[in-house]
Every structure is written in C-alpha cells, then in structure tokens.
C-alpha cells in the first residue's frame, strides 16, 4: 500500500462515497435508478436513462466482459513505469460500462488479448480510505 504510486482518487462524500466504501470492503457498488431500475456509470445524482433523481446503490456481481481495449506505450507518473499496460472498457453484467486497467493479460502481445473475454473485478488498496478497482481476465 505504501508503495502505491499511481493517482489515488478522492471520494465525493455527497455522491460517490458508497462506491468507495464498497471498494474498501471488496464490493463493487453501482448506482441504480429506483424508477427505471437501470444501473449507470460513472455515478450521477440523476439517472441518465430516465432523468429520475431517485438513485440507490446496489452491489454488483463483479462480472463483466471486455468491450474494447488498447495497449498503452506512453504514460506519466507511476503509470510510466508500467508500460506497456492494457486499458479497457468493461461491459459489467448489470449493464453499465467502466474504464479500467486489465490484469492477467500479456500487454507485449496485443493480438493475444480478446474483446469479449470474461473478466472479474478485484481491488487494490491504494490508501487507508481508497481501494482502486481493476479487472482481471478469467478465461
């Protein structure tokens, strides 16, 4: 933890605190509209599907698939030491999408990484308050 040298997000105590509290406990929390029942991501105070302001937090399965990915050869700060690394947009099983850095892939061989592969969320403790979600290829 002490050596976590990547950007560490700060929770917004009024909106996103449940997401980061969940992450700290190893749970993936998503905002869901109590009117249309759809989840969305990134978290908002308004549902982007039906414009309702009635939002609740639900625990997600942590399962998803790779929607698309890219292999980064250039980065700054702590990420510069990690190149090449693979970023991806994850289609979560519950229906929303999330950006991440993929784990369990060979970033030196982009052809070996497959869109549609199943992934599972995991969390890395970055500070006492914040654990950052990452997704790992599980097939």
């Amino acid at each position, binding site marked *: 933890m002490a050596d976590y040298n*990547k*950007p*560490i*997000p*700060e*929770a*917004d105590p009024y*909106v*996103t605190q449940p997401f980061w509290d969940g992450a700290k406990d190893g749970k993936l929390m998503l905002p869901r509209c109590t009117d249309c029942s759809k989840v969305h*991501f*990134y*978290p908002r105070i308004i549902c*982007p599907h039906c414009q309702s302001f009635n939002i609740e937090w639900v625990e997600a399965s942590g399962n998803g698939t790779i*929607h*698309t*990915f*890219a*292999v*980064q*050869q*250039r*980065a*700054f*700060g*702590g*990420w510069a030491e*990690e190149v*090449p*690394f693979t*970023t*991806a*947009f994850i289609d979560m099983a519950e229906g929303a*999408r*999330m*950006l*991440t*850095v993929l784990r369990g892939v060979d970033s030196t061989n*982009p052809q070996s990484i497959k*869109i549609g592969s199943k992934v599972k969320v995991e969390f890395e403790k970055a500070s006492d308050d914040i654990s*950052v979600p990452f997704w790992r290829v599980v097939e």
Partner: protein
Amino acid sequence: MPNNPSMAAALVGAGESDKIGFVPEKTSLMLHAEAIKNAAADAGIHIRDIEAVFSAGGVPGMQSPGLAEYLGIKPKWFDSTTVGGSAFVMYVHHALAAINAGIFDIAVISHGESGYSGGRRAGKGTGQTRGQLDPWAPASQFEAPYGLAGAPSSYSHAMNRYMHQFGVSKEAFAQIAVVTREWAGLNPKAVMHSKETNPNGGPITIEDVLNSRVISWPLNLLDVCLVTDHGGAVIVASAAVAKSLRRKPVWVAGAGEAMSHSSMLAMDDFTRTSASVSSARAYKMAGLGPRDMEMAMIYDSFTYTAGVTAEMLGLRPRGEGPTLWAGDDARPGGKFPVNTNGGGLSFSHSGMYGMMLLVEAQRQLAGTAEEPGIGLPGRQTNAKVAVVNGTGGSLSTTGTVVLTADS
C-alpha cells in the same frame, strides 16, 4: 415552420497565420490576428467591418471577447462555444442562423493556437500551468486512476472495437495516412510537405505507418495527427454582402451539429460518431445527399477519426469507411478529393484543427487554391460541392456543413 436558412450566408474569404507549423515567436493571439488580417484581405474587407466574432481557442477565460479586445473591435455578437475541434464548423451553423435572422452581415470565425510552442512556454514567468480538475469530477475519480495519457490513449479503444466489429485491418487505416500525405506534398505550407519542410516529411507508405512507433495500440505514430502552431480564419457574410465582395461566394447550403457523449466514459457505441446525425441535418437543410458531394474535408485527428467519419457522412457503407481512401478517388487527381490541404495528419494540427477544414474548403470552392502564396499547381480540384465535418472531444461532438460554389 421556421424558414430554411440555406444559402443565407457565404464564406467570402479565408486565411492562415503568416507561418504555420512551429512558430515559437508567436502567441495564440498573434496567430489569430495574422489569420484574420489575411482572411479579411482575401475577402476585401477591413477588420473593423467585422460585426461578430466566433472563437474558442488561445484566449483563456474570455475567448471571443478576448480576441475582439486584442483586435480592437467591439462586436455585436460573440460566440465561444467550446466543444473541441468541431466548434469551428458549428460556428458556421451559428453564424448562418444569426445572419438569416438579420442580426449582422459580417462575421469572422477564427482560431489561433500555439499548440506546440505554447506548451513549452507554460509555467515560465507568471504563466499558469493547466488547472487541476476538481477531484470530485467524474474523470478525476473514474478515469485518472487508470493512466490514460491524452487523446491517442482513448481513441485507440474506439479503433480497436471498430476493427474487431467489422474485421477491418490496421493497413486499411494506414492507407488514409498515405493518401493524406500525398495531398501534403502539393501544399508548400504543410508541415510534412517534403524533406525540406521537415526531416520526416515527404511521401510515406503503408509499411512506414505500420512500422512507426506504437503510441497506443492499435494507433501508431503515423496514425496520429501533428502537434503544431497555427492560426486560421474565414469571413462569413450575408448573401447581399457576399455578392458585393471580390471573391466568388462559397455558399452555406446546409449546416448541422450533434453530440453523442462528452467523455469517453459515456461513449455508447465506439464504432459510430454523431456525424451521422449532424450530416443528416446539414444534408436536409441543403436539399442534397451524400451522392451529391464532390469532395470532403474530414477531421483527421487520427486515421480512425477520418475512417469512421467517412461512413457517418454517408460516403461509404457501414463498416467500410476506410475504403474511401482505398482506390484513386480520394488522391490528388482523383474524382472525390479528400483533405486536400494534407489534413491534420500531415498539414498542421494545433490541438483544435476544425478551422483549417473551413479554410481549405473555402479555397477549393472559391477557386483560389492555386493562387500565389496560397498553393501550388495541382492542388485546385474541380469540386463544386463539399461536405465538411469537424469532430471534437473524444469522438464526442460533430459539426457538418455542406458548401457549394457560386454558379
């Protein structure tokens, strides 16, 4: 039913800053001022004749009023809509509407951006570095933790999804860079015109693109636009004024704008842009369709941007956008010229490139592309109808105009 503003306004002059490419001796405002000087001279008007200022770059905070102040004019209309590099094409839409409403007769759309040199000066003197994002902003919490480094690192995700979904190769996109470089070879102002203008200039091959350094796979260096300094401006005038000026009017037949998202965190379909919507609006206003177009100026921040936009504009079937560049059509001498200035890939791209699409389209349709100081023999095409599309943000916003030459 509102009246149709089609042809209520025309582009009547265009200009660039005196130097383009790497101009360390000029700030963004100076690049603006030179471009406006040259565009006004091209149109045959005085800068003080300008009644409306449309601008979004190079003047932090106050944008178009900041530019008007620098020029010493007090416009009756100013617009700083800031939506990325597509903004300039949208300004044509905005100016057309205001001119049609009778609010002013003469407007300037301008861009000046010390995109390369300004960054190297940042932080010196009392200069501020780029402001930090609010830590509670969505991008701060859900994008910044994952190490993306600028536009190439996000656009690459879209290109990969497109390649996967339609079975399109990197070679097909590389061809866009090759053909665009051929056009740069005819434009002496293009940064990559030749070995004389840049050590890396001159013709390139598909292999050169594929063998260039990987920036963010699947994007290689030669799939990515330049980072330069430039200014550009066009003068827009009402129909009555346009007919009284020295250049043949380039008529605004249609205009439209649209968006799909702002940040890529909320991009729904990585294989589309809103250009399908903005172009549909522009074609409808013009009473024309994609088959009526004779040339295209397509924002090419990346080969992918250009490729996907070609099909969003209806110029190629779905999943086949890059084939617009596959044969001889889009090349110099071809029957459907595309990005005749050398594009953001090989001419100049200061950060927001959309302005230069308009400068080049105006010249092609006014017939001035080969005038001394403007171009070289071989650049002027026979096109009389052009579609121009700007893309801004992270494939987020689009502005489309349909322009027609005076008959």
